[in-house]
């Protein structure tokens, strides 16, 4: 058991080192401005941290991520549960869902900015509209698979609506919520960058746009690494422990 963990850690460290080595080799071989060495990127990263620029823009983007993610998940879970439990509403709104699922992200972003102006709320709204249909569909599917036997049991024993939701429905939806969370984080942070690029004057997307105009690849890579690390951190400090806690009853 212990040996297996050591081997796993060893392999994942090895794969990271191999990645860096290939990067370094390529950069030295090509000797081009468009592919800086890991060392240069690390230097730029450090300078960005010291000057406070990188944490500031990263922080702004993360705030937008938290806001739009929370709104999309809350609304999406509520609507998803209702549609999953009510066949008539579901039949009515199904078309809307399909439409919103298939509107390109760029279109919603442009329309939000055109209709509501280049303001923060328009930016958040654009992200929410992009993510919401995905959450609804996932949670709706989850709600459809709810165990009718357990719901009947809850009715027999006169559980209140609240009790039924907390103790009977929510635990069954948990895997679907976690799925929506993971796919949601991945989707939202990509969309947020586009939103910022098009209509905000701070955040990662705005900075990346600036670096693109200056052809500053080292900075682009430094910001990317910072962002990927933060998402990984969220996975390991929040999502994984949540998973573990909610799965404790399984054999």
């Amino acid at each position: 058991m212990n040996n297996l963990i050591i081997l796993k850690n060893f392999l994942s460290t090895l794969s990271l080192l191999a990645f860096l080595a290939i990067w370094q080799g390529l950069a030295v071989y090509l000797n081009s401005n468009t592919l800086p060495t890991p060392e240069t990127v690390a230097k730029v990263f450090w300078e960005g941290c010291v000057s406070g620029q990188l944490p500031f823009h990263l922080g702004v983007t993360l705030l937008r991520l938290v806001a739009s993610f929370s709104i999309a998940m809350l609304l999406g879970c509520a609507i998803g549960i209702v549609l999953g439990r009510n066949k008539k509403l579901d039949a009515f709104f199904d078309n809307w869902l399909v439409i919103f699922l298939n509107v390109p992200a760029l279109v919603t972003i442009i329309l939000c900015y055109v209709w509501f102006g280049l303001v923060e709320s328009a930016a958040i709204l654009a992200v929410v509209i992009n993510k919401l249909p995905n959450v609804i569909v996932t949670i709706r599917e989850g709600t459809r698979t709810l165990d009718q036997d357990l719901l009947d049991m809850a009715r027999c024993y006169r559980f209140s609506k609240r009790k039924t939701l907390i103790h009977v429905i929510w635990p069954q939806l948990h895997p679907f919520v976690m799925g929506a969370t993971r796919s949601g984080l991945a989707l939202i942070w990509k969309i947020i960058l586009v939103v910022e690029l098009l209509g905000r004057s701070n955040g990662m997307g705005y900075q990346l746009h600036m670096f693109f105009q200056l052809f500053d690849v080292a900075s682009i890579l430094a910001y990317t690494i910072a962002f990927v690390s933060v998402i990984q951190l969220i996975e390991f400090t929040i999502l994984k422990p949540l998973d573990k806690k909610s799965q404790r009853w399984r054999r």
Partner: protein
Amino acid sequence: MTDIQININSKTYPTATKPSIANFQLSLKSGEFVCLVGPSGCGKTTLLNIVSGLDNDYDGDILVGQQHTHPKIGYIFQNPRLLPWRTVRENIELVLDGNQASDSMDSMLDVMQLTQSQHVYPERLSLGMSRRVSIIRAFAVDPDVLLMDEPFVSLDAPTARQVRDLLLKLWQQRPHTVLFVTHDLREAIALADRLIFLSAAPMQVISEITVPIARSERHNERAIESFRQKLIHDHPKIKQLL
């Protein structure tokens, strides 16, 4: 506790052409243990679902005492239907209103030999143990009537017998009106004050028989078997059902 009167004029499922239950009357005296015996598929579970209030799509009424209302029920399902993400104790506590005495729960756990397992999640329990938990849960709400839908089915014989004895022990400590569904006549004789024999669909009462065997004699296999032989001999109609 009060008497319960069940009248079902007819119950027809939307997709069916003929009714599952027709002209069905049954009265349960307070504290009485009644076994419904009938062929499988005759509508026994449908009847329990109507009494429990899960199925409201029928023509008829249910009287608790003098009132037209749904009785407070404890339902022991064929599958235990425990919440797998809650421990044994939490599963029982959930049906309580919060401030009911937990010492009565401790004593029930003790009678059902589950004190050791009260903080275990249901997936780690055997089927027999899960059934015992669902029995405690049903008693815990102090119901007007306990509904039991073949709660010993698919247990091996010794386990079924053990759970049955524990159920009787708990029931004698806490008398409740019981409506027990089975297609096993021996089991019915061992448990019931009164046997109700049911026809195939549309379900009707064929005959009602009081079991004269004293409670202290119920563990005696021979007494039960001889009563069963006598029943079948005296009531040829019953024989066709079994």
